[in-house]
């Protein structure tokens, strides 16, 4: 159901200078509208819709109101308001007095709305809030979304914004030239690690109290044959779900599915061959002394494993592989049981089928077997039900996982800020496939990759091209890949760097600091200073040696912040955490939270 755009605020009973009525127009759910003074009898706001629409659903986010009523009218009829949604309860007297649950969200569908008003078109909406139980608070709305069943027009501009997130258009995936081949590669990378690698994985996580990695390893150790079998029901599921969304969507995913299937079969065959080759000792050894240093850090576990394999020839009884866990795409989320809240069709269906494709299970309502709630906004009934019991994530979690074909740590997508602020737990790091997580690793990206390993890079690019060629030819010849590929090529230590190569080729390497002039103050410990500088450089930021007039931001320690602010009043002073967080999230974050 498309959202009806609210054109402007026609009128309001009163507004707080900070929490103005115009905040309702903002897509930022943190902005709210409150009445001007405490103890007002009721507060109302009149909204002008972009055009007269039949309203089929309304989502309302509360801000301390006990009751909210929605009336409708047409701008040409003189203020003759009809009730569309009868006064509905958002807070009980007890909650009102104790200011609990002040941001409850309720979603009203067609059945909730008054007849016959809901079958007519209206262009004016009046929302009346009241709070009779607490005369000491300002109250209002945190957001309102009006849905119509009319086909999407320019009204919504094709993009939906949820808070700071822009929802991608419906297409399941952008298929660009070369992109698919890059993805194929991911698939090959996703083969389960061998037993020894699995053990190494486990040991590298012994610091973690979580036992989840072990379970996952167990799953990923299933034989290729079994995987091929288990694929079947997953596909069936997906087909069923495709009934729920439009053809365009299903076409896209069918294409993907075909490719996936083919790849899966290739993988299975390749693994078989690898098992045979394993018996012969490895011959290729990387001589990269610089990397040996990195290996000392336990945090750089992935690197470490690869490294050790390369250096320790005697241990090479099996092919080298990444320490990261990998799973077939249709099992990425195989221990996830999810529930969706606050997301309407067709997006709901597409999210669901994405998650099902990745092996998750869907439930209509939360029960004790559920693990994740995919939720549009906080304080929905399901949100409150699940809070503290399960992982509540934004829809972007599924979308990103699907898009990047890997399981990303849920905390990055936590809906509740409190959840997001906690450190990512180990089990998620474990499943993290291709995103740099550890500090030294990104240092590699900037230094090793581009300087010390220059020749390696070329070598690998050549290999990738070769492999792509093979992929193409194997497509052409059916599945007869046995004689075109020798496993040794793929068994090099290249695997985990490949995403970077691909990214470089795509020009989409994280470079979110590009064009930013950042000065890092020397108030930090040397280690930290170096790390921060590395990050800035890694993400293509400009590291300044001294503060200039056009410096974008000064990163400084707390002790020095006041001094810095005094000397450079025009420049923003941020905490080092900002850089660290940006690195962690792999994107630039708003600085506001981190400013002194």
């Amino acid at each position: 159901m498309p959202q009806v755009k609210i054109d402007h605020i026609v009128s309001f009973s009163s507004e707080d200078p900070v929490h103005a009525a115009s905040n309702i127009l903002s897509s930022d759910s943190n902005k709210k509208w409150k009445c001007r003074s405490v103890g007002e009898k009721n507060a109302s706001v009149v909204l002008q819709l972009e055009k007269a629409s039949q309203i089929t659903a309304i989502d309302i986010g509360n801000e301390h109101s006990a009751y909210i009523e929605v009336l409708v009218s047409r701008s040409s009829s003189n203020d003759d308001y009809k009730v569309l949604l009868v006064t509905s309860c958002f807070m009980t007297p007890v909650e009102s007095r104790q200011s609990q649950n002040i941001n409850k969200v309720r979603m009203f569908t067609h059945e909730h709305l008054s007849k016959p008003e809901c079958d007519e078109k209206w262009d004016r909406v009046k929302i009346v809030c009241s709070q009779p139980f607490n005369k000491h608070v300002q109250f209002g709305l945190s957001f309102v979304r009006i849905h119509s069943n009319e086909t999407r027009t320019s009204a919504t501009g094709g993009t939906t914004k949820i808070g700071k997130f822009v929802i991608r258009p419906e297409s399941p995936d952008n298929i660009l030239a070369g992109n698919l081949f890059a993805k194929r590669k991911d698939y090959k990378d996703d083969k389960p690690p061998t037993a020894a690698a699995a053990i190494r994985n486990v040991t590298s996580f012994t610091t973690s109290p979580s036992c989840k990695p072990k379970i996952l390893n167990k799953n990923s150790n299933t034989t290729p044959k079994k995987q091929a079998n288990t694929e079947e029901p997953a596909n069936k599921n997906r087909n069923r779900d495709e009934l729920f969304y439009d053809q365009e969507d299903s076409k896209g995913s069918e294409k993907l599915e075909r490719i996936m299937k083919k790849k899966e079969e290739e993988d299975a065959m390749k693994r078989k061959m690898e098992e045979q080759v394993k018996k012969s000792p490895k011959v290729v050894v990387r001589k990269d002394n610089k990397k040996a240093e990195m290996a000392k850090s336990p945090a750089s576990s992935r690197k470490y494993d690869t490294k050790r394999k390369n250096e320790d020839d005697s241990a090479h009884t099996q092919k080298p592989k990444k320490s990261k866990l990998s799973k077939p795409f249709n099992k990425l989320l195989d221990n996830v049981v999810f529930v969706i809240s606050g997301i309407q069709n067709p997006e709901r269906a597409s999210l669901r089928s994405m998650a099902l494709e990745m092996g998750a299970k869907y439930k209509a309502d939360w029960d004790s077997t559920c693990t994740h709630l995919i939720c549009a906004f906080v304080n929905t009934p399901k949100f409150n039900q699940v809070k503290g019991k399960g992982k509540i994530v934004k829809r972007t979690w599924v979308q990103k996982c699907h898009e990047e074909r890997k399981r990303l740590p849920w905390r990055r997508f936590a809906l509740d800020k409190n959840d997001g602020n906690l450190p990512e737990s180990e089990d998620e790091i474990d499943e993290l496939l291709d995103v740099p997580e550890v500090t030294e690793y990104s240092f590699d990206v900037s230094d090793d990759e581009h300087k010390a390993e220059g020749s390696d890079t070329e070598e690998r690019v050549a290999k990738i091209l070769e492999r792509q060629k093979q992929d193409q030819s194997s497509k052409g010849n059916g599945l007869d890949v046995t004689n075109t590929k020798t496993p040794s090529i793929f068994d090099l230590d290249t695997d985990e760097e490949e995403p970077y190569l691909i990214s470089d080729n795509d020009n989409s390497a994280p470079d979110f600091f590009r064009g930013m002039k950042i000065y890092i103050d020397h108030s930090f410990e040397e280690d930290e200073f170096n790390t921060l500088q590395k990050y800035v450089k890694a993400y293509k930021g400009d590291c300044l040696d001294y503060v200039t007039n056009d410096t974008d931001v000064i990163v400084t320690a707390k002790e020095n912040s006041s001094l810095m602010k005094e000397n450079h009043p025009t420049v923003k002073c941020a905490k080092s955490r900002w850089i660290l967080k940006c690195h962690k999230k792999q994107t630039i974050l708003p600085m506001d939270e981190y400013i002194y």
Partner: protein
Amino acid sequence: MSKRKNPVGEENPNYDFCNFLLELAEYEKNVSRNMHKFSAYKKAAATLGEHPTRIKSGDEARKLKGIGDKISKKIDEFLATGKLKKLENIHNDPKTEAINILTKVTGIGPAKALSLYNQGFRTIEELQKNPESLTHHQKIGLKYYEDFEKKIPRQEIQEIEKRLKDLIQSIDSLYKITICGSYRRGKSESGDVDTLITHPNWTSDKVNKKDKNPMLKKIINALTVADLIIDTLSLGETKFMGACRLDSEHPVRRLDIRLTPYDQYYCSILYFTGSDVFNKTMRAHAVEQGFTLNEYTLRPLGSTGVPGEPIEITSEEDIFDFIDYPYKKPEDRNA
């Protein structure tokens, strides 16, 4: 609710005023069919009944709530002459007399009484001889006329309550049973037994389903088999009216049982506990606070006066709390 309301006892300093007002109220209801006048007299009687000291003049009474010009003059007249002309006229009017008598039978209301009067019936005895024009309900009412006129002592209701609970909860222990009416308000005797039953599985969203709810029928069946219910005046899906008797030693009593949706239970309890005057004041207060209250739900009123969605209520206190009305225990709701 019972047909007969208790007259005010002699211990009340204003009992005589109250009783003549109540009598006038009955007259307005049964004969002139003017419900507004009926309410006005009832309200005035309730106010006077609450007043702690004897009223000495109409002017003094006038200061009280619900007593205006006309009633204060009547009080003056009563104080001066010891009687009321209007009441004398009523007493001397055979039509009023007959209607008042006939309406004592359950099932016979003012309209039926008037039609019976026009057919020539004047007394209960005449009716008993020629019951052809009566409905089943009215016939039963006539059958137990004497017993139904008797007040039920509190202790007997307690025994009936115990038997009802034992029998109903042996069907399903989740049934909640409350006897409302004047019994719940702590009165020493009542006119009938007003019972409310609910079950957690029976909620208002199931009420309009086509398939009939068999719960009440099963209950009535069990109570009939147990010989507690001896006659049925009417039985629907949610309301039973009938006659019950503890044993042959006891008179036959009027018993009402209502099956209420679980989510409407407390509004019903509040309503059926009464008193009716209390209910009216409470509802008026609710409207002042922007709510509408009835025996089913409490709903907030919207800006155009359209009632909102029912408020979830988990106890009687909740209702008072929502409309910001000081909580009154059932015993304090007699006014």
